């Protein structure tokens, strides 16, 4: 094996949580016609926007896919785009938005590749209306280590399509993707935002909003003591006409990881309270540019570095609706009693459209995303306790955000994993996969 190639910037080999520092051999892919390297274990690496080890492969090979970034075809009448799997959502939008087309589903960052979006079957604020990413994928090409190349659609090679959608990169390399975009009148969204004082109010707001708003999401106040548990700001919006472009602001950079975490009790409480109490938290006719609506955190590149050299954990679970209020309350109380605090908390109701992927994360219920600075054993113990609540509720934790769930938890969250195993390419593996199945 050649010497591992490392980079001074965060590049292939690191993930968004800055928790894990593994050595890899990185093989940059520069075109879509090459054979896979004859070595193992292999794993595709997109843009490293997963938080934990789903995109890592300790002591193995990472196939860096960002060089597969060519557009292949775009039909501005039907809104069908075909491109290589390393194209970023941001680059796709730059090409298609002027023609009035937008990704049907987008996660909270535009810096993800299409391959990564398929492998985690990512979801957006419109899950209740359109399902997850792979519900809109028309076709992709899967390259296997035995040399076969499969054209997969929801009909052709359906079982491979369903194994690869949400398949955590384990079924092979996705080289090419054909995606159905959705028409939009322009770059703007309109809607409103309002405060809610309890989880009950959140569920009520969501019940009346889901039908009228394509995008809904809530932010929870993490500064509150027990008395305000579950208060926050609910945001809802739709695409609205308006073609005027915005002044593109240059993203702020955090070029170096500070030697200590900038996230502490003071900054967290201050920012959360300021956010909750700011006048804009209650807006009747809000208007957002798509970048600030979908990608509020992309304004600061390397935002993840503010957690300092020890990194941070994300915890995103989904809880079935019937028990959601009870289990979420339990989760909040458990956190409050632990001494650990989340910096950001986002809550969203998933809808009923079933995912195509046999391992996809989204399922009906309430999904809560939290992030915790890494305080070692203390943080891990809390997350373990949260898993107990999620398991008991019949929920699941999102592998794209995970760096620590146990085998038992994983196997309960994803009961299809045994069946899925038959589709895992024998030359492919990941640090996450070894962690939760061996």
């Amino acid at each position: 094996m050649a010497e591992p190639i490392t980079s001074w910037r965060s590049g292939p080999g690191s993930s968004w949580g800055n928790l894990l520092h593994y050595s890899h051999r990185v093989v940059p892919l520069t075109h879509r016609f090459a054979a896979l390297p004859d070595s193992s274990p292999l794993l595709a690496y997109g843009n490293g926007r997963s938080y934990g080890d789903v995109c890592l492969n300790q002591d193995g090979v990472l196939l860096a896919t960002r060089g597969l970034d060519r557009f292949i075809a775009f039909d501005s009448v039907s809104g069908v785009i075909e491109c290589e799997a390393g194209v970023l959502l941001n680059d796709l939008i730059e090409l298609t938005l002027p023609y009035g087309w937008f990704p049907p589903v987008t996660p909270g960052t535009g810096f993800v590749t299409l391959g990564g979006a398929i492998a985690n079957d990512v979801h957006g604020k419109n899950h209740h209306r359109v399902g997850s990413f792979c519900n809109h994928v028309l076709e992709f090409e899967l390259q296997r280590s035995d040399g076969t190349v499969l054209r997969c659609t929801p009909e052709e090679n359906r079982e491979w399509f369903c194994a690869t959608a949400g398949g955590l990169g384990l079924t092979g390399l996705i080289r090419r993707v054909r995606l159905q975009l959705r028409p939009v009148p322009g770059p703007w969204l309109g809607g409103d935002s309002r405060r809610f004082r309890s989880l009950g109010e959140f569920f009520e707001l969501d019940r009346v909003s889901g039908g009228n708003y394509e995008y809904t999401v809530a932010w929870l106040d993490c500064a509150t003591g027990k008395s305000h548990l579950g208060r926050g700001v609910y945001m809802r919006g739709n695409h609205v006409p308006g073609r005027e472009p915005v002044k593109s602001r240059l993203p702020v950079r955090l070029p170096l990881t500070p030697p200590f975490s900038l996230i502490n009790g003071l900054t967290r409480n201050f920012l959360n309270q300021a956010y909750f109490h700011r006048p804009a938290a209650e807006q009747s006719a809000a208007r957002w540019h798509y970048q600030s609506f979908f990608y509020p955190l992309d304004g600061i590149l390397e935002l993840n570095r503010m957690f300092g050299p020890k990194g941070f954990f994300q915890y995103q679970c989904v809880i079935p609706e019937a028990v959601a209020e009870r289990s979420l309350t339990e989760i909040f109380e458990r956190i409050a009693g632990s001494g650990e605090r989340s910096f950001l908390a986002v809550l969203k109701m998933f809808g009923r459209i079933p995912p195509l992927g046999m391992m996809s994360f989204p399922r009906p219920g309430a999904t809560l995303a939290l992030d915790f600075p890494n305080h070692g054993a203390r943080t891990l113990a809390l997350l373990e306790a949260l898993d107990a609540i999620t398991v008991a509720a019949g929920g699941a934790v999102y592998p794209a955000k995970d760096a620590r769930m146990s085998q038992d938890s994983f196997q309960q969250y994803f009961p299809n994993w045994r069946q899925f195993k038959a589709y895992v390419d024998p030359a492919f593996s990941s640090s996450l996969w070894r962690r939760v199945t061996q």
Partner: protein
Amino acid sequence: MRRILIMGATSAIAEATAREFARRGDALFLVGRSAERLQAIAADLKLRGATAAECHVLDARGMDRFPALVDSAAEVLGGLDTALIAHGTLSDQAACEASVETMMQEFATNALSAMALCTLLANRFAAQRHGTIAVISSVAGDRGRQSNYVYGSAKAALSAFTSGMRQRLHSQGVRMVTIKPGFVDTPMTVAFRKGVLWASPATAARYIVRAMIKGTPVLYVPWFWRPVMAIIRAVPEFIFQRLRL
């Protein structure tokens, strides 16, 4: 709109540069060795805004076919006013030391083929009294070093050749741009450990396009290689010969 011939169009630096031209709506004629890769790049460039992106398969060592190549580029694009010569191989120094044949082949690929193409382009551009030729040389051509002097001397030949040609063409309205990249993160340098001195192909491309539009004579990419190489050139030979660079 520029009408641009790119030799070595599958190179990472060339492709990134072509994207900048595509964004400006220029017309491109792409030359390289792999038909399928050229076609994939051409389709992408058209979607990114290129007025045209045509492919032509040719090995740079097939120098006897250069006249036909240049004619066909001008015919397909309806004229020709710009060229970027980007192909190259980072020669295996040890193999070049062991075999005269290998050494000469490497020199032919990296120097003679580009000089041959420049000769034809210069005559055409001089006749039409306008045009820009850009050639990717290298900082490695600024001084021969034991670790890669075959590659380095081929690039040195390119630098000297383009310098002379620049003088000759100056009064005829033709610009000659010698591009000297330092470290760029591309397939050519995949085996190297990357550090702070490394630039991405996209960054290099932005500098290159700007220089080609302005007609900058010699471009170091990025700029800091100019003072760095000035220092390296200034080291007296009696000291340099003892160094392990």
